[in-house]
């Protein structure tokens, strides 16, 4: 693997900011969750790269925990999307901008 560590970090930060833009600009709840997924994946890429850079296994173990965290987060948030859709018949985030809910 003859790639500078820097290039890996650059790739991960580009993917991270693409996910951030999805979270900021989209109005569809599902697309916002997809943006969070993209950001978590970029973090996983950095962890695996760091694991290879220092030749320690800790980074890879942390990616496994990251995957478990992601699946827990996705299951709860998608259940909430279903709940919100049942209440207001829409998944547009502008419908949920008041505290009364």
């Amino acid at each position: 693997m003859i790639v500078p560590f820097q290039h890996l970090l650059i790739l991960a930060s580009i993917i991270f900011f693409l996910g951030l833009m999805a979270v900021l600009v989209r109005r569809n709840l599902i697309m916002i969750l997809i943006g969070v997924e993209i950001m978590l994946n970029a973090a996983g890429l950095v962890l695996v790269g760091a694991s290879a850079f220092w030749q320690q296994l800790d980074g890879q173990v942390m990616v496994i925990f990251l995957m478990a965290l992601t699946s827990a987060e996705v299951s709860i948030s998608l259940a909430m999307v279903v709940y919100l859709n049942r209440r207001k018949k829409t998944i547009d985030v502008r419908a949920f901008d008041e505290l009364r809910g």
Partner: protein
Amino acid sequence: MATWIFYILGAVAVVATAMAVTRRNPVHSVIYLVNSFFALALIFYLLGAPLVAAWEVIIYAGAIMVLFLFIIMMLELSPGEEADRQGPGPLQWLPVLLLGGALLGCTLLLLQLDPAGSQELPNWYASPRDFGYALFHEYALAVEIVSFQLLFAAVGAFYVGRPASRKERSGGER
């Protein structure tokens, strides 16, 4: 050779992610995202993490994205709603692009400043055996905690997604 494969896969991942972010139909963007995850899984393999690459395909592309597809199908949105009707216009895109571009530029400048970053990644390979040993010996307690977390998530998802009770149905907004 591995260098070129890395750059090609990186380009595929970035392009597929950009397509996923900009599609109007959530189903299309999920499919593009699966493509991007495959590219990332191959990058993980190049970085010497074959087991993590396999789990990336199985858990992310296989389980989480299929869950997204199931939910999109389950919501039964009207056709006009499925895509945001007109999509975010330039008024929404412009500030986000400016802020995101500034943040990304600062991050890249910081990466340039660090001299350690220009060192090359070593040729390294973590066998699944070593990985499993590290996971279940050094991090055994953390594995238990994560399994509890998954249990709580399952209970929480079941609670949030339960069918509406009769009281809510008659008195609520429906």
